[in-house]
């Protein structure tokens, strides 16, 4: 299978990450938002494939502008990208108890009580 080129990745960014009104960002808008760190001509060349080996910095700036993780261009950075996991109810309870200075063993006990209470209420609701 042919490897995706940088130009294709950049093109996809412009096509899929649009302005709130649905229009694609112009090269000038992106360049302006990045404080001129990349100029509009370079962006155009990057998207068309005229620049095939841009510096890391340019691509990282595009990630910042389009709000996509850097692993989009650099797969090895996936280990630094945020995970979608959220904190479970049990972890939130532990967090709340920890912030109140409740000792670990007592936390376990209280979380156990809360879980038992929740289970009891679920079965009552079903009845």
């Amino acid at each position, binding site marked *: 299978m042919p490897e995706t080129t940088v130009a294709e990745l950049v093109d996809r960014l412009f096509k899929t990450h649009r302005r709130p009104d649905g229009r694609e960002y112009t090269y000038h808008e992106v360049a302006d938002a990045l404080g001129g760190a990349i100029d509009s001509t370079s962006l155009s060349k990057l998207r068309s494939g005229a620049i095939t080996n841009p510096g890391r910095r340019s691509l990282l700036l595009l990630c*910042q502008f389009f*709000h996509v993780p850097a692993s989009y261009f650099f797969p090895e950075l996936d280990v630094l990208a945020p995970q979608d996991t959220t904190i479970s109810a049990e972890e939130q309870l532990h967090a709340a108890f920890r*912030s109140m200075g409740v000792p670990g063993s007592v936390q376990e006990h209280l979380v156990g009580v809360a879980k038992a209470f929740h289970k009891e209420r679920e079965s009552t609701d079903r009845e």
Partner: protein
Amino acid sequence: MNAALIPADVQHAYRLIVEYLGTSFSLDSLLDFLAACRGKSVRLEEQTLPIGITGYCFAFQDVDLIVVRYRLDPVRRLGTCLHECAHFFLRHIPRTSAGEATTTFAAFVEQHVQGDVDRLRACYDEPQERAAEMLATLLIAHVDGTAHHIPETARQMYGYRSHT
């Protein structure tokens, strides 16, 4: 610091950061790199915080917030900032701190949704705190301009070594 004692994920994150930013970089460059890695803006703020807390971080829908205590001395401010960055780099913080209930940063500012932040502020496990501190310690010597500002006691505290 004995490399054998440093967890693999800390070593890996450290290597990638130095590979991408070089051996000497500014705090701003590190924050930009963090923003790029997470695909979100990073906001660094100073706030008055309760005793015992020098900083915390929170992932809003659109912004990753790093807060450090107001008027910390420069070395501790940098150390705290790097520690909070490390939590993000080491993926201790998910994309959003409170899942679907997470607000945008603007909504937080408007509504003063302090509850969520208070609740999650102390939620990291001890091993995560140690890992974040290790990565912060490894990074601090790479941040531009720190060498002139770090007093001897702080050098010892952070195990500072010069990369020049």
